[in-house]
C-alpha cells in the first residue's frame, strides 16, 4: 500500500492521473524562490522556455542573464555572481551542463565552494526522439563524485518545486536533475520533503518486505506500478524514493537492506556511477546484500518515443518486476 503517512496523491492509480513535466515544478519553484529572496538570480544558455526559466525571467528581468549557447561561461559567470552574494540557478540541458562544462564546475564552483545550483533539464533516455546525443545518462556520476556537490533528482513536478525552494536556501553547490516528459503526479503539497532524507512510498499492508526497491527521478511511478502488481502476485516490497542521491540517507538505505536483505535500484542513468552505485557503496560499507541494478547497461541511446526507449533499455515496469524476482532468488 502507499505509505499513508506521506499524503501521496490519492488519484495515483487512476487511468487519468494528472501528468506534468518534472521541469515545470522547477519553473514554479524558481519563481517562488525569486519572490522570497532577491539574491536569487537565473542564468540560461539559450533554453529559457524549455528549461522553464521563462517564468522567473519575465517576473525578474534584471535578475535574469541570457548567456547564449555558452555552457562553460554559464557556470563560471554564475560562480562570479555567487562570489558577490547571489544564489545563481543555471539551466541548460543536462547533456551540455554539466555535460560539457565539468572542469569549470569543479574548479570554480565546488573547489571554490560557491552556492551555484546547476539545473540539468532533459536528462535521461526519455528525451526520446532527439536521439543519443541529447540523452544525458552520465550526469549523476559526473556530479556526485565532486566534493561539496549535492545531487537531487525529484520524482515529480511537486517534489521538484519543493527541491528548488530548498536549494535556494542552502549555501552549498548543488545539481538538480530534471526530465522533460510529462510524469504522473505522485506526491502532494503536503508530502514531506527534506534534502538528504529518503522516504518509503510503498510498503506491505502487513509484515516485512521481501525486496527493497530504491528509485530516483522519473521512473518512480513505474517502480510503484511494479510494486503494486508484485503485491497481487504475493511478493511484498518496499519502494524508497531516493531523491537526494548525495548526501545519501545512509540510515534509511541500511534499514531497508536490513529488513529485505535484497535490493533493486532503478534509475534513468548508466548503472556505472549513478544512484545504484551510491546505494551499493553505502551497503558494501554497512550491510552488504544482493542488489540488482535497473538502468542503462553501458550503452548509448537512440531515437524513439520515451516509452519505447524505456522498454528497450530494460527500465520499464516489467523489467523492474523481473529484477525483483531475480534478486529474491539470489537472497542469502
Amino acid at each position, binding site marked *: 500500500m502507499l505509505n499513508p503517512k506521506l499524503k501521496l496523491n490519492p488519484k495515483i492509480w487512476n487511468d487519468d492521473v494528472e501528468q506534468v513535466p518534472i521541469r515545470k515544478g522547477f519553473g514554479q519553484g524558481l519563481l517562488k524562490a525569486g519572490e522570497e529572496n532577491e539574491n536569487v*538570480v537565473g542564468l540560461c544558455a539559450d533554453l529559457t522556455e524549455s528549461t522553464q526559466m521563462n517564468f522567473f525571467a519575465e517576473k525578474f528581468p534584471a535578475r535574469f542573464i541570457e*548567456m547564449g549557447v555558452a555552457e*562553460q*561561461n554559464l557556470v563560471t559567470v554564475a560562480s*562570479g*555572481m555567487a*562570489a558577490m552574494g547571489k544564489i545563481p540557478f543555471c539551466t541548460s540541458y543536462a547533456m551540455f551542463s554539466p555535460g560539457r562544462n565539468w*572542469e*569549470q564546475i569543479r574548479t570554480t564552483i565546488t573547489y571554490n565552494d560557491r552556492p551555484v545550483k546547476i539545473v540539468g533539464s532533459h536528462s535521461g533516455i526519455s528525451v526520446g526522439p532527439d536521439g543519443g546525443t541529447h540523452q544525458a545518462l552520465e550526469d549523476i556520476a559526473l556530479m556526485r563524485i565532486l566534493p561539496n556537490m549535492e545531487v537531487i533528482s525529484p520524482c515529480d513536478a511537486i517534489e521538484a518545486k519543493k527541491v528548488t525552494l530548498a536549494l535556494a536556501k542552502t549555501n552549498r553547490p548543488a545539481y538538480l536533475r530534471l526530465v522533460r516528459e510529462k510524469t504522473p503526479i505522485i506526491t502532494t503539497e503536503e508530502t514531506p520533503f527534506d534534502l538528504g532524507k529518503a522516504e518509503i512510498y510503498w510498503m506491505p499492508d502487513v509484515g516485512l518486505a521481501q525486496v527493497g526497491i530504491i528509485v530516483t527521478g522519473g521512473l518512480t511511478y513505474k517502480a510503484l506500478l511494479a510494486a503494486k502488481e508484485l503485491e497481487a502476485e504475493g511478493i511484498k516490497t518496499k519502494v524508497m524514493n531516493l531523491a537526494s542521491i548525495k548526501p545519501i540517507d545512509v540510515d534509511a538505505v541500511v534499514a531497508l537492506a536490513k529488513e529485505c536483505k535484497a535490493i533493486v535500484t532503478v534509475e534513468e542513468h548508466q548503472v556505472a556511477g549513478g544512484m545504484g552505485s551510491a546505494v551499493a557503496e553505502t551497503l558494501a560499507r554497512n550491510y552488504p546484500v544482493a542488489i540488482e541494478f535497473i538502468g542503462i547497461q553501458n550503452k548509448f541511446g537512440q531515437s524513439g518515443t520515451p516509452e519505447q526507449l524505456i522498454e528497450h533499455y530494460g527500465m520499464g515496469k516489467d523489467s523492474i518486476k523481473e529484477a525483483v524476482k531475480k534478486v529474491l532468488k539470489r537472497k542469502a
Partner: protein
Amino acid sequence: MFLTEEKIIELEKTANNIRISIIEMLVKAGSGHTAGPLGMADVFTLFYFHILHQDPKNPSWPERDRVVLSNGHICPVLYAAMAHAGYFPVEELMTLRKFGSRLQGHPHREYLPYVETSSGPLGSGLSQAVGMALADKIDGKDKSRFIYCFMSDGELDEGNTWEAVMLAGKNKLRNVIAIIDRNNIQIDGFTEDTMPLEPLQSKWRAFNWHVIEVSGHDFQSLNEVVEEAQATYEKPTVIIAHTIPGKGVKEFERDFRWHGKPPTKAEGDMALKELRDNRF
C-alpha cells in the same frame, strides 16, 4: 592619481623586492613558474601599492575592489605582492607549494581566503570577473568599484575566455577591467607560433571592448591607462600590457623555457645578486 617621481622610485624599489621574494620562493619550493611572475611584478606592484581600493588589515571589506587572477600559475607574484602589501607575513612566502601551506601551487581560496577565487585551469577567470560585475550591476554598485581580471595571453586560446568577452561586451560592463600579460610565450613556445593571437586589439574591439596597449614596465604609462579604463563608462576595458617574461634577471628574459620551471640554487643566487645590486 598622479604618480610623483618619488612615488615611482618607491614603486621600483618595491617591485625589486617582490622579484627578490619570487626568486627566493621558487628556489625554496623547487617547482613553479618563473618567467610570468617576474614579468608581471611591475603591474602587480602598481596595483597593490597604488591602485587597488583594498585594506590588507580588513581583507573581507565588502566594498573592496575585486582581483581575479585567471592564470593561477603566476601566483608567486600575487602572493609576494600581497605579503609585501601586508596581507600576511613576508616569511610565509617561503612555504610556497609545501604540505599544509596556505600558499598552494595554484591559488585555493579555502586555504588563503584573501584570494577572491581559486584558479589554475585556464580560461575561466574572466567569466568569474564578468559574473561579479553582473552582480554589481544588479546591485547598483558598478560605479563605485572595479573588478580587475589579470590574465595571460596563452589562455586566449581557450573558448571559455571568448564566451566571457562576448557577454561582457553585450552587457556593457563598465567596471570590468581585464589586464592581459602580453609576454608572447606559452609552454610550447611563442604565442604566434603556437596559436597566433594577432591582431589582438581588433579581436577585442570587435566584441565591443575599449582596448588599450601599454608597456607593462612603465609605471607612469600603466597608471595613466588604468585611469583611462576607469573613466570609460560605456564599455568594459582590456589593457594589453606588453611585458618581458623573466623581467629583471637578464639570464631569464624573453626565453620561453623559463615559463614552467624554477631556478636552481645556483641560478637563484645569480638572479638574487643581480636584483640586490640594483640601485634606485
